[in-house]
């Protein structure tokens, strides 16, 4: 979503983005002329008249689980967004009985919060597990 019209979205997709991604942008490119939606989401810069790089993960109940907002010159890291969605999906599937520690990705161990884990995370989770 940006403040550009759908006409400009079409031009950008057809003339540039479709040369980067085969078949063009696979998801809808939304138009927010005037920045009303961006204002509600706290990403519209009134002075510049454009929206910052906001990214919101919204769950199946319509609840915002995560967001990230960057100023224009720095791009996002898409795989981090995917990792966060995978983590939220796992937590949701476990009905909140599991939590994903720092650096978690699919296949890595989760934590099961409860009285017996209090003060003992250091035994099961090492800082070296954050990286890789």
């Amino acid at each position, binding site marked *: *979503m*940006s*403040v*550009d*019209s*759908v*006409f*400009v*979205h*079409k*031009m*950008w*997709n057809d003339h*540039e983005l479709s040369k980067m991604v085969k078949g*063009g*942008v*696979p*998801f*809808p*490119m*939304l*138009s*927010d*002329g*005037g920045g*009303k*939606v*961006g*204002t*509600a*989401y*706290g*990403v519209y810069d009134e002075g*510049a008249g*454009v*929206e*910052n*790089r*906001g*990214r*919101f*993960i*919204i*769950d*199946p*109940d*319509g*609840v*915002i*689980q*995560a*967001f990230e907002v960057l100023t*224009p*010159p*720095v*791009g*996002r890291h898409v795989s981090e967004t995917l990792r966060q*969605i995978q983590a*939220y*999906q796992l937590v949701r599937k476990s009905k909140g009985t599991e939590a994903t520690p720092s650096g978690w990705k699919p296949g890595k161990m989760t934590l099961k919060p409860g009285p017996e884990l209090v003060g003992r995370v250091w035994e099961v989770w090492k800082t070296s597990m954050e990286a890789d």
Partner: protein
Amino acid sequence: MAEKPKVGCARPTGGLVGQPEARQEQQTSQPTKEVRTMIQVGKPAPDFAAPAYHKGEFTSVKLSDHLGKWVVLCFYPGDFTFV
């Protein structure tokens, strides 16, 4: 995805669902500031409807039509920007 909007010369735009019309907001300078604090993790995402371009068609997207699915909503400064 909702109904297909007519393609005219006017530049279509969207807005929040259930919010007062823009002209009401122009009467005072306050209302635009009010909605700015709506965002919080763990809280409902403000519903909106917006015109869209998708696979060669002009269409319209309403957030609440996607309940039951995970949604990633991305904002960016503008088409043809570089990053």
